[in-house]
Each structure stands twice: as structure tokens, then as C-alpha cells.
């Protein structure tokens, strides 16, 4: 048993050395501020097998910035049909921001785009895009 633990510790230590420096948190994406377009920022946490919150309401024409972090493994964040698809770093590896500016009212589905476990298919949510002034307070 002692030998197994020693081997295990050696393997882990070797692997950690091989990895080199610990990955740095991913800096937020740099975007050029647009004075004329209103912005809304929402922090979303991904974990097996939910996004929290899983429902986001935003007015038409507002640039939605979804700041994503993971509580466990790598997840994906894809807004279906809108060309938005980012990879969320593992826990402790920082955040990533997905940007979406809806031009039409309606409901947009987002989902995990990277297989993350047995319940991967449940990781979905909705962006509700409403006419300006009609969003729920």
C-alpha cells in the first residue's frame, strides 16, 4: 500500500512539473466600448449539469455580456443559431466572456457545447429578449 501511495505521489508530482507554470486566469476579452449601444453584464456559473442563472432577460439592441466561470470541469457555452460558442475554463482557471447583441425579441436557447458528464444534455438555458422597457424588474 505504501508503495502504491509513493508511486502515486511521484506520478502526480512529475505530472505537475511537466505541466510547467500554472495556467493564469484568462483575462476578460477586450472590446472597444460602443457608446451608443447599451450593455448588460450577467455572471453565469456552470457546473454539472446546470447553468446558474439559466434564464437571462435582456432588451432588444442591448449588448449582453455573459461572464462565465466553471465550478468543476470544462464546459461550453453556445447560443444556438447565433454563432456564439465559447469554452468555459475549468474551476480556478478564470472566466471567459461571451458577447451577444440580439436584434429581435424572442427566446434564444443556450447550452453546454462540450460533453461534461452523464447529464450533459440537461445543461441548457434561455435568453429572453424583450422590447425595451418591458423587461421584468
Amino acid at each position: 500500500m505504501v508503495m502504491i501511495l509513493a508511486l502515486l505521489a511521484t506520478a502526480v508530482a512529475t505530472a505537475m512539473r511537466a505541466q510547467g507554470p500554472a495556467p493564469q486566469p484568462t483575462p476578460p476579452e477586450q472590446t472597444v466600448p460602443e457608446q451608443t449601444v447599451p450593455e448588460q453584464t450577467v455572471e453565469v456559473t456552470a457546473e454539472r449539469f446546470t447553468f446558474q442563472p439559466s434564464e437571462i432577460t435582456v432588451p432588444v439592441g442591448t449588448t449582453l455580456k455573459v461572464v462565465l466561470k466553471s465550478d468543476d470541469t470544462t464546459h461550453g457555452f453556445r447560443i444556438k443559431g447565433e454563432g456564439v460558442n465559447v469554452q468555459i475554463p475549468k474551476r480556478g482557471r478564470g472566466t471567459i466572456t461571451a458577447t451577444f447583441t440580439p436584434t429581435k425579441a424572442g427566446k434564444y436557447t443556450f447550452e453546454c457545447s462540450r460533453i461534461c458528464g452523464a447529464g450533459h444534455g440537461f445543461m441548457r438555458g434561455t435568453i429572453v429578449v424583450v422590447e425595451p422597457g418591458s423587461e421584468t424588474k
Partner: protein
Amino acid sequence: MLALALSAAPTWAQDSDDDHQPSTRLSGYMDFHYNKPERADGRLDFHRFVLLVTHEFSPKIRFVGELELEHAFVEGLEEGGELELEQAYVDFLLSRGFNVRAGMLLLPIGIINERHEPPVYYGVERPFVDTVIVPSTWFEAGAGVHGEVGRGWRYRVYVTTPLNALEFSADEGIRNGRQKGSDANIGRAALTGRAEYVGVRGLTAGVSFWTGKSGFELRPRLDVPVHLIEADARYSRDRLELRGQFAQVAIAHAAELNDAVARTTGINPNIARTLRGAYAETSYRVVEGQRWGDVGVFARYENYDTQFRMPAGTAPILAFDRDAWVLGATYWPEPDIAVKVDYVVARNQSGVVRAPNALNVGLGWWF
């Protein structure tokens, strides 16, 4: 339900989803254990080798498969290992609130059954309550619906093959009654479901049920209605995580079931009419964000009794009225690899048979 899904298929083809490419992906997890019960030799066990395969036919039709090799070795008619098809279903994603799923399904009961990748739970082995009261991993063939209804509420409802009461036992309850979708009897389908709330950041709370008739193998045939209810919650904030779960199983006509099984097998199985279990767990990441990884510690108390209420005239076997403290730690050299160690302080109500304590060491990973 399947017909409804298929009839809607032409509409899906018109969906504009320019970022979708049909794709197949491979993933999986592994579980390697050392178990050392008190007064017995230690055992090394490559407990689980699991491969997940997913394929997206289109943005709204997906396949998910999970093939598991347990205990590293399978030989015909031996109990040493199992090759299990734990999941193999097609998901028809119709809308946020209503989706259809058919095939081999994980039943939506408890914390562990659907969420059992080694890095996401503390302890080398899964909780006892999630083993002998909720018989995880519990999977059956069937079909059902699932969706999210807004404000953080979501649901799953499946119709599946039922449990086989001929295989129930005093110590493991309904566990051996799982048919696992293997040429399974579905003369009377079982119904299972779960309502889940994820509307508060860090909180997942749910209630589940299972109901079915399980006496189809008994001769003469005997109705054995079985009902399971379950409630659970997980809450995490920063480094702290709290978990709790309660589950109870009611087996109707348990006295007649014991008589019928005794006539069939020659042994009275002493099956209870009620099984009950609960646990509470607290964990804390004492080290986080270090270059060499994270460390968390945990304590879990479990109380589980597969002889909780007996049929009239039958005495419970007190060795199966059990409780346990599980204390341990997990080291994550990176978030998808978990090195675990725990010590189980086990007790039961028997004055004769003593429950052995155990030391467990495990290595689990996800990729």
C-alpha cells in the same frame, strides 16, 4: 411521445443553426480503489472504466451512450465484473419546456444517480444511501419527457421497465431487482420522475419518486407495488458545500412476497415493508487556487436501514439497521483528477455481528 417527436422532425430541419456540424465525441471517467476493511486484507479494484459517446445528428436530435466496465473483468455467470450499458438514448429537443428521450435511461433519483463522475463527489465510494436505498447506478430501458419550465424549475418524467421483486433482499433492499434493460419485463411499466429547483445560485434541490409493480416473476403471480420517494439538496458557496438526502422505499404485500420467494428459492429473504435512509455532508476546500492543486475535506453521516419496518410477524435483522461516519479528504491536482482518502466508522444495531470500519483510497478522473 416518440411519434410526436418524429412528426416534428421536418420543422427542425428548417432551423437555422449555422454553427452546428454533426459530430461524434468521446469522453469518460475512471475509478481506481484500494479498500481495506477492518480485520481483513486490503483489495485493489479498478472499480469503473466508463466511456461516453455522444453524437449530434442535428441541433435537436442527439445520441448519448455510456458503457461501463465494472471491476475490470467480466466472465460469464461470474459476479466479479459487469459490462453495463448505463445510458443509450436519443434526445429529441423540441423546446425548452418539453423534450422527449428514449432508450436506456439513468433514473432521475437522488444526488448521485445522474451526477456520479468521481471528481464531483467526496468519498472513495458513493454514499451508502445511494447504494442500498437508492440503488445507483439505477438505469432502465424506457422513454420520457424532460424540460425546464422557468424560474429555475425543471422536471423529468420517464416510463421504464420495473424492478423484479424476486431479487429483493434483506441487506441490499431493492438493489438487485434492477432489470437494467436486459430483455426486461415490461408487463406493467414503472413511472419515475423528478422536480428540481436550480433558481438560487449555488443551490440544487429536488424531489423524486418511483412507482411500479414488481411481482411479475413470482408464481403464482403476485402484485408487489413498490413506491420510492426521495428529497435532496446541494448548496455550495465559495469553498463550502453542504449536501443532504432522504429516501424511503415502501414495498406492499411484503409478507406475501417473502412467502412467495421462499416457495421459489427455498429461502425466506426477510424483505422489509419499509426501507429508509438519509445522509448529511459538509465539505470545505481548505486549499484552493494553488499551483499544485486544491484540497478539500469532508464529513458525512449516514443512517440507513433496509429493515426499517417489517411485515407483521417478521422480526428485523438488526445488522441491517446501520449508520456510518465517513471522514476524508480529496486532492485535485487539476479539476478533473481526484485523489481521495477516507475512513468509514460503521455501526449497526446488532449485538452479534459487528460492522467493520474501513480505510479507502481512490483515484478518479474525468476526460
